[in-house]
Each structure stands twice: as C-alpha cells, then as structure tokens.
C-alpha cells in the first residue's frame, strides 16, 4: 500500500468566496480539511505608518478605507479616540446624527454581507434584493455627505454638514419599509431546506473558544456571548436608545446569520428613534482650536478663514497621553489606540480591527469540515480584507 499523503490546495488570493484577496492554504484528506493556513497582506497599505505622518484631521479619510463597507463606523471610532484624547464635548445633535449614520451604515454593511454570503452558498436571488435596499442608503449618504462608499462625514468634534432638506423624509420612508424587506429575505432563506443543510451545524465555535480567539461582533454573539460595545461601554449617547442584543446558542453559520438579521431590525429601530428625538443645536463642538469652521464661515469671515488655514496646515496639539476608544462596527469591536507625544501628529496609531481577530479563528472553525463548508464559514464570519491588511 502506498503511504497516505495529504493534498495541498491554494484557495485564493483570487477566489471570489474569500471576499477580497485572502489566500488560504488547505491541506486536504479527500474532501476533508486537515488544516488551513491563511496568508494575509495582499492589501497591506501601511495605514498605521501613513497616519503617523499626518495630522489628526488628515487621518479621517484613511479610516473610511479600512472596512470599506462600514465607513461611517470607522470614522466614528477614530474621532471618538481623538475626542477622548482632547477631552472635548460633542454637541447632542452631532451625537445623534452620528448614531443615525452609523446604524444606517451597519444595515448597508449587513446587506452586502447577506447578499454575498447567500451568493457564495448558491442563493443568487438575494443579492439583487439586498443591493436594492443598500442603494437607498448610499443615496442618503450621498445627499448628506457627498460620498457613497467613502463619505468621510464625521469630523473631530462633530460632523461635517447638517442634514440637507428632504433627507429626513427619505430616511423615514426607508425606516418604514425596511422591516418588510427583512421579512422578504427571510422567506427566501430562513426555512429554506438547502440553506439549512448548508449552514446548520457548520463552522461551529463554542463561546469559550470564540472569546479565546478574540472574536467579537455578530460572530461572537452567534455563540451566545452577549458582548456589544454599544451596551457594555456606551459611546455617542447609545445609552439613550432602546435596543436589544440578539444572540444565538450554537455558534454555527446559521446562528450568525440569524443574529445579523435581527441586528438589522434593531439598527432600523435605532435609526427611527434617532430621527424622532433628533435634538437641535450645533453640529460641531465649539472649540476654535480643534473644530473646523463651516464653509460659509470660511468664505465670509476673515478670522474663520485664518483659523481654517491654521487647523488644516498645522493641525492641533493634543496633550501627551494614550487613549483607546472603540465602537461596535458591523464586524465587531473596532478600536483605535492613539499615543500622543504632544505634537500635531500621532506617535502611535494602532487600529484594532474586528476582522483580523475573527479571521484568526477561522482555521479552528473549519478543521475537519468539507471544502464546501469552508466557503460558507468564511462568508459567515464576514471579513473585509481592507481592515485585516490595513
């Protein structure tokens, strides 16, 4: 008898189901995965190094490009860290606008995930449905911020613009229609026998293991750990909103799917509450050393013009110290650890991205499963290579 040898297969970096440029080296015994080794770095742009050579305001657009499906949430995590470092108070209206945009973005990010995840498994139809709703959100972003994928809407101290006229009605219309759309998605998948067979009991991870692997976000909650940064360490007035943290119990692909569906509904409810109770007032902190003056002010007031020039060209100098601020991004806990040496540029700019830790758990999830299950498991942990490779 010949000796047993395992077959080694390269999955990626151009495989469509790896959601970017991820390469996984699979060692196979027939069709069963013996071991899986992810290789990263194809999208490494050196964002951390780059941000250390820029002033604090200039780093905001870099954050959009980390997890490019969740730009608003990335902005939020970064500006929260800088605001903590500076110890400045953000006006209530800006906080509510931030919550509203972050939750709309979460819905949009989950819609991309749902569409592509279902596509990977073979349910093509759903992609058409989810991108229809996502388009509505992106249109709202375009009107509010001027950009769709990378809006760079948030500023240190507040937001860049107030809501233009007519947008509130559009958000309201979206919020009213969205629960119906979620039901539509569910009729296609939740009790679909093929979907159940492909996802139930697949890629399971226990709560203890998930924590040990640093998994956060919906992937952790699918295993039954109710850890959500919005509840555990509330930021940007999240303590004033009523919402629940959905969680699963089996930690498999199906539970992670259900958690994200429920999460979209709760995000929708948060947007509705933010819209109902949207306070009036300023949209950016009244701190002339930090906050950029509005465009109208710059064009009509010489003092504002000078101030704008100073802030843009020199930046500001926060006190010496180190802060860590994190938000519940669509993939999990996104944190920024900023060390300041008192100069106008950060001394260390560390980004703790959820996908990085979540992906590290992949090899333990798929050990012993079939190649087809690798596809559905990668889809279910919802990774974006832009924030893994940075």
């Amino acid at each position, binding site marked *: 008898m010949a000796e047993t040898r395992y077959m080694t297969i390269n999955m990626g970096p151009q495989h469509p189901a790896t959601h970017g440029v991820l390469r996984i080296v699979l060692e196979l015994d027939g069709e069963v995965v013996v071991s899986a080794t992810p290789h990263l*770095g194809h999208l490494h742009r050196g964002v951390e190094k780059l941000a250390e050579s820029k002033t604090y305001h200039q780093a905001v657009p870099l954050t959009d490009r980390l997890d490019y499906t969740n730009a608003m949430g990335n902005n939020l995590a970064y500006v929260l860290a800088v605001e903590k470092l500076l110890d400045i108070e953000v006006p209530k209206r800006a906080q509510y606008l931030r919550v509203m945009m972050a939750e709309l973005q979460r819905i949009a990010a989950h819609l991309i995930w749902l569409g592509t995840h279902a596509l990977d498994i073979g349910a093509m139809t759903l992609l058409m449905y989810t991108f229809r709703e996502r388009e509505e959100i992106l249109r709202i972003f375009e009107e509010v911020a001027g950009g769709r994928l990378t809006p760079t809407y948030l500023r240190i101290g507040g937001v860049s613009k107030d809501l233009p006229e007519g947008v509130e009605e559009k958000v309201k219309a979206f919020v009213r229609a969205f629960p119906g759309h979620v039901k539509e998605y569910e009729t296609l998948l939740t009790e679909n026998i093929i979907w159940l067979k492909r996802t139930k009991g697949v890629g399971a991870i226990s709560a203890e293991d998930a924590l040990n692997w640093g998994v956060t976000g919906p992937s952790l909650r699918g295993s039954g750990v109710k850890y959500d940064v919005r509840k555990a360490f509330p930021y940007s007035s999240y303590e004033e909103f009523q919402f629940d943290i959905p969680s699963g119990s089996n930690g498999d692909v199906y539970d992670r799917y259900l958690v994200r569906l429920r999460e979209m509904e709760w995000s929708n409810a948060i947007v509705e509450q933010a819209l109902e109770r949207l306070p009036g007032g300023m949209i950016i902190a009244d701190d002339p050393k930090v906050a950029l003056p509005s465009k109208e002010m710059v064009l009509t007031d010489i003092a504002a013009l000078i101030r704008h020039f100073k802030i843009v060209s020199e930046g500001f100098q926060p006190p010496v110290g180190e802060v860590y601020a994190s938000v519940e991004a669509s993939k999990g806990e996104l944190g920024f650890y900023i060390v300041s040496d008192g100069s106008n540029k950060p001394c260390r700019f560390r980004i703790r991205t959820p996908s990085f830790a979540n992906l590290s758990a992949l090899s333990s999830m798929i050990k012993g499963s079939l190649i087809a299950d690798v596809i559905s498991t990668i889809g279910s942990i919802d990774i974006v290579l832009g924030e893994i490779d940075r």
Partner: protein
Amino acid sequence: MEDIGPSVKGLKEKFHVLGVEIFRSEVTVEVPKEDIVEICKYLYSDPDLQYHLLTDLCGLDLFPQAPRFAVVYHLCSIKNNRRLRLKSKVGETESISSVESIWKVANWYEREAYDLFGIHFENHSDLRRILLWDGYEGHPLRKDFPVEGPDFDKPFVPEV
C-alpha cells in the same frame, strides 16, 4: 483619587508593578517583561477578574528612549465590564514571552508586532511575518523607517 479597580489592587499585592497611570479614566499598568505570562495568567483565571478577552496586543516604538520597545496589551473583562491596559518594555536585543498559551488570538497579534516592529516573542509557536512577505527587510513601524520605504527611489528589477 480615581477608582483603580480590583485588578490593579490585586496586581500590586501579588506582583511587582512598575507604575500605574490613569489618563482619561483609562488605567495603564506597567509591568516587568519577565512576569508578563504570570500576570496575564492571574488576570485571566482569577474568578473575580476574568479578563477572558484580549482585545488587542500591539507594539510601540519609544525611540530614542531605552529600552526601545513596549508591548501593549488591552484586556477586557466581560463579566465586570472593565478594561485594563498592560504595558511592558522590551529592549532592542531582548525578547518577551508569548501569551499565546493564554489567549490564542495572541498568536496573530504577536506575529504582527514581530513583523512591523521586530519584537521577538519567546515560546511562540509560529513566529513569522504576517502582513509583509517572507524575505522583506526591515520593520516598517519603527520610527527610523522612512514612510516612503527605504528603496522608493531605486528602480525595482526582479531577479530572473
């Protein structure tokens, strides 16, 4: 005096703590690198603390200070809803013990710190570059590494 929490009190009683700093109500504890594994084990397994989630682990270049590097650990206790930051300084030619045996996620984080700073971790199961390719020279997040890269003005001719 702000509340430093039970974890810092426990650490001070049981271990040699180099310093405690509170900035914007975040607690940073500096500990000697020799004790890092024991300290992490204590923080992980003590029933009152239960720091089960290693949120983040990263390197820090303190150039031109000596010792040059620091490894920063961000711990989170879900039970107590608390965060804690540990910091341990490492010299350029020294190494620090890996905490992979406590939190598996440290495997990749430590690989990243090794890749981008050149900090060496003892007892790590698979210490190789993670974001950059094998054979890359230098560690980009060091302060003496140029942002443009060391060879940005040289033509790139691959070996045939």
